[in-house]
């Protein structure tokens, strides 16, 4: 299939009489295609709108109450309404922050290596290849790996920190790839200008290259965080749910929004289901806020093509 093999019949169709309008068959096909691609877009929007509206309708009532944001589910059963998602919100945020604190330096330094040092080196190609593999690792496998390491090998308990380690595996490739893209956008002229002033390479990277790419890197981090906050699979293996407020990363269980949803999703009664939808709405609010922030920052990015 190439353009060249197709042009002859186009020529035959088009050449005999350029004055006559296109044949009806061709016009119908063209119109059909136009309608089809518009329809495809509309179809794709259905789930998005449906999900957002449904979450607002079904989760809105519990989320608007003040206690939702201040109380935990401690002592709540499927028969008692009330309580809140505070424990799950701080659990999700805490794990996300710890994950980011580990992932971001690792990811940024790796991206710096790949762009500033390792371009066209053998080790650079190996790292890039490994990063590709890591990008494709399913989140459940990341959870299994940390389980094999943390629980089976080290004989430790399932604790929130182990969840963070699994999430690091998922966040690092996302942030590394986006940082790489941003570093690539920094014009080489700026690096040269800095070198020509007698500035060393690491100073050039930290004081010229990174600040120039800063907003783009932040965007990548926020999008990576949003992805990690919604992850559920590794939590099933490593982070059992707790209804109480927990802040200790190294002992006990910690509630999070995904596991809060998972804990009661099979209930049929209205009270737990309301909580499930409320937690889902809360989760998507957090995720969308991060996405929005990321995209806004990207728009005011200093690096432009």
């Amino acid at each position: 299939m190439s353009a060249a093999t197709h042009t002859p019949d186009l020529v035959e169709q088009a050449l005999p009489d350029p004055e006559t309008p296109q044949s009806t068959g061709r016009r119908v096909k063209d119109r059909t295609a136009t309608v089809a691609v518009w329809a495809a877009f509309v179809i794709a929007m259905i789930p998005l709108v449906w999900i957002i509206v449904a979450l607002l309708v079904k989760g809105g009532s519990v989320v608007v109450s003040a206690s939702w944001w201040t109380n935990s589910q401690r002592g709540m059963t499927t028969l008692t309404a009330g309580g809140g998602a505070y424990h799950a919100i701080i659990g999700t945020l805490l794990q996300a922050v710890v994950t980011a604190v580990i992932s971001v330096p690792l990811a940024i330094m790796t991206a710096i290596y790949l762009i500033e040092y390792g371009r066209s080196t053998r080790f650079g190609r190996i790292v890039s290849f490994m990063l590709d593999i890591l990008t494709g690792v399913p989140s459940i496998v990341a959870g299994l790996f940390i389980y094999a390491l943390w629980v089976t090998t080290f004989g430790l308990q399932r604790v929130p920190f182990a969840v963070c380690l699994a999430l690091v595996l998922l966040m690092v490739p996302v942030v590394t790839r986006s940082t790489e893209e941003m570093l690539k956008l920094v014009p080489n002229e700026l690096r040269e200008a800095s070198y020509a002033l007698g500035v060393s390479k690491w100073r050039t990277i930290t004081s010229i290259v990174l600040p120039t790419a800063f907003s783009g890197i932040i965007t990548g981090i926020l999008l990576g965080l949003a992805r990690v906050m919604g992850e559920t699979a590794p939590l099933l293996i490593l982070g059992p749910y707790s209804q109480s407020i927990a802040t200790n990363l190294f002992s006990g269980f910690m509630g999070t929004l995904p596991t809060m949803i998972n804990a009661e999703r099979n209930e049929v009664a209205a009270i737990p289901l309301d909580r499930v939808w409320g937690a889902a709405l809360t989760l998507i609010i957090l995720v969308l806020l991060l996405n929005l922030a990321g995209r806004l920052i990207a728009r005011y990015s200093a690096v432009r093509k």
Partner: protein
Amino acid sequence: MTTETEVAQVLRPANHRRQDQVFKALAIGASSVIVALVVLVAVFLVTQAYPALRQNTANFFTSRIFSIDTPPIMFGIADLLWATIVTSVIAVVIAVPLGVSIALFLSHYAPERLARPAAQLVALLAAVPSIIYGLWASQLVAPYYLPVQDFLEKVLGWIPLFSATNTSGGATLMFAGIVLAVMILPIITSLSREVFAQTPTFHEEAALALGATRWEMIRTAVLPFGKPGVISAAMLGLGRALGETIAVTIIISSLSDQNRQSFSLSFFNGGETFASRIANNAAEFDTPTKAGAYISAGLVLFVLTFVVNAIARVVIERRRAFSE
């Protein structure tokens, strides 16, 4: 006025060399951590799967039994492989034409002012956590899906793939595949759009100059040019679908032991994928052997996604080699 000597003093010469070395070492160190992590994932999965595989008295690849509580230990992945591949392939078959159409919409049809926000809306679809997709699908979409399934059963039921089964409601492979299609739509769309947007303008103009309609231009110039990109996008989408866990876990019902006795080809059957089998039993990793059995399944999933992603990479690399 700063004099030359003063400046020479403050510009501490060669002090940066050490700092440069330290910084580069940090960068190499971080990169080494990445390499080590991937190697460790593979090594740990293999070493922890191995003891369980040795005790396994059933054929790992062809058996559909998963009996690991009491000896003799027997487990196999045949039905997991089937469910995983069926759901993922259904997802790709639905998502590719849809994603390609949306990509064309974004790159060639949407008015300029709409194209950007529209692309961001599609990207938002990727931001929705998968547990929310699962919840939405099982609680809200399933009732609307059931009549479709009934209809297909009635019309196509004579084909084994569409025959009726005991699985109730929307808890079927087919439905999971449809929901997975929505979930992998954004990645297929954005990658396809990227390659479509790179179509050389002179190809497009050549077609248009010959009197081609917009659709003919797309068919003769844009689609052939973007084909490797679309294939690669489809493979990456497939990779996502294979490993997707919680949404699938929520949607499909696992089969009872009784229903597992006889194997059914039907898309309207329940079942478990690699990921959902592991997720459903995550609380039961109490002995190394039990954990090892699930880790074996995880290992197969890891290899499967690796192969699929590698194919995607090879396809796109080859295209890059041609276009340079």
